[in-house]
């Protein structure tokens, strides 16, 4: 049994440990704050000196001559992101349905880790595969140079698969067994029960999965630079090249200085705000569940 004064010493030590851990626990908040400060401090002034609407909706990007309009990049980002969802989401849902509802336990045990390993492949490697496989394919079979919105969407569509599949799978698994039994007892085929009962019941999880996939597609940089062509134009066809917000930063950061560099931080601010809004929507959906 510790003596009373020993006990006091221990109590003090415990208090110090708790205080230390509390400080550590705030490190992620600190990092988040610092990111906001450093990116916004550099970026926000130039947005306002250019004019918010000129910066967001201007179509002329001539950073060395002082024209900063990032509208083509915003359009490019949105096109590539939605293209990726159009390709990635249906595939992800099919795969999740199979793995969750129809696969034998052994098949599931082998397939699921294989698909999750796709997430481990570095994005530059996907970009490389995009350049040597997807771009020539699009050029030969569909026309154009191959460096295009379509190529970027195809590549990103594949890159978001592991994220979307694993969350969709979890939300399908969370649907109570009684739903399946109820649907089957009413005479539905297994597929009907999946589409009409289980998918709707897992809806909020699937929406979360899609939003996280969207964030991943929107934030991807190096892989997109390699296949999208990077021309600053508003693409009017999926075969046209485009430049995304992320590529804009990465392509010009190496040599930018002065206002040009600040405009790239401002591009980062716009991207940050878009992703942040997306995250808030995702959090709200998860809460509602």
């Amino acid at each position, binding site marked *: 049994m510790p003596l009373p004064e020993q006990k006091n010493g221990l109590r003090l*030590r415990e208090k110090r440990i708790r205080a*230390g851990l509390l400080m550590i*626990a705030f490190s992620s908040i600190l*990092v*988040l704050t610092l*990111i906001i400060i450093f990116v916004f401090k550099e970026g926000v002034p130039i947005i306002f000196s250019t004019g918010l609407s000129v910066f967001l909706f201007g179509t002329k990007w001539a950073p060395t001559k002082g024209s900063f309009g990032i509208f083509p990049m915003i359009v490019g980002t949105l096109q590539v992101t939605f293209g990726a969802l159009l390709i990635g989401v249906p595939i992800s849902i099919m795969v999740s349905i199979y793995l969750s509802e129809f696969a034998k336990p052994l098949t599931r045990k082998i397939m699921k880790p294989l698909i999750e390993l796709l997430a481990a492949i570095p994005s530059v*490697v996907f970009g490389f595969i995009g350049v040597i496989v997807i771009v020539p394919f699009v050029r030969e079979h569909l026309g154009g140079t191959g460096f295009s919105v379509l190529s970027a969407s195809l590549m990103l569509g594949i890159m978001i698969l592991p994220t979307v599949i694993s969350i969709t799978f979890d939300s399908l698994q969370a649907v109570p067994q009684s739903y399946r039994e109820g649907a089957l007892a009413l005479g539905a*085929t297994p597929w009907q029960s999946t589409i009409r009962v289980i998918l709707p019941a897992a809806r909020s999880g699937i929406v979360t999965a899609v939003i996280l996939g969207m964030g991943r597609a*929107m934030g991807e940089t190096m892989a997109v630079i390699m296949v999208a062509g990077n021309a600053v134009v508003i693409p009017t066809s999926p075969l046209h090249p485009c430049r995304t917000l992320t590529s804009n930063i990465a392509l010009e950061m190496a040599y930018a200085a002065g206002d040009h560099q600040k405009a790239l*931080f401002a591009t980062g601010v716009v991207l940050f705000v878009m992703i942040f809004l997306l995250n808030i929507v995702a959090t709200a959906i998860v809460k509602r569940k």
Partner: protein
Amino acid sequence: MPPESRNRNLFWNNLFINMSMLTTLAVAGLLLAIILYLVYHGAEKISLDFFLANPQDLGRSGGIFPILISTILLGIVSLAIAVPLGIGTAIFLTEYTKEGWTTTLIRFGAECLAGIPSIIFGLFGFGLFVVTLGMGWSIISGGLTLACMVLPTIIRTSEEAIKSVPKVLRDLGFSLGATKSQVVWQIVLPQARNGIFTGVILALGRVLGETACVIFTTGISMEMPTSLFDSARSMSVHFYLLAREGISMEMAYSTSVALVGMVLIINLGANFLIAKKA
């Protein structure tokens, strides 16, 4: 239900189930196809020499030795910073506080960090570490930036691991007169070791594969770093430059095999640990 309608339903049922199976096979096959494709084109050049020789002529020939060392140093620096912070946060969230506004705030912060694209971490690292703190393009700037990036991964996996330790073990410790910190250090953490280690390995995989934020904080120097304040080039950056600038497709293939091989081995290790835990 008339039998022909039942038959029609069953026809669609089987068709769709088979389609979903084929899609699954195709996606799983994709991973194997990518690996086989890279190995087919790049494995020939891979030898001990490739890992131990210096790059020649901008990387057109020679090996990747300084790049390998720089990559390992980046991994060590970033984990040395992120792991204590991540595990500390997880311990605080699970053992030292009740759910309330503090935990909500901390979790919200970690979730936001997890959603921020790596290019923004690059801008931040460049603005804070490279310029404002005067560390320049260096391994330490890159390591710090990467640490911020993987922090949420480590927090989340450690939290899960610590939560899965049964409460009865803690009560046992307290009943023997142990203090909170003794219970955490001597009972909870050893029990959660595998789960925490899995998270650390996954974070390492992300660090090694990262390009966008490394290029702006660590630079692209191919020289062997002599201190943590030297600029250096990570393997993924080297691969990106080889492929993007069209310096050498041959070397790009070989580097990609080394890079993917490294990352896959790390992730398979993590999977193995998860399987062992279950």
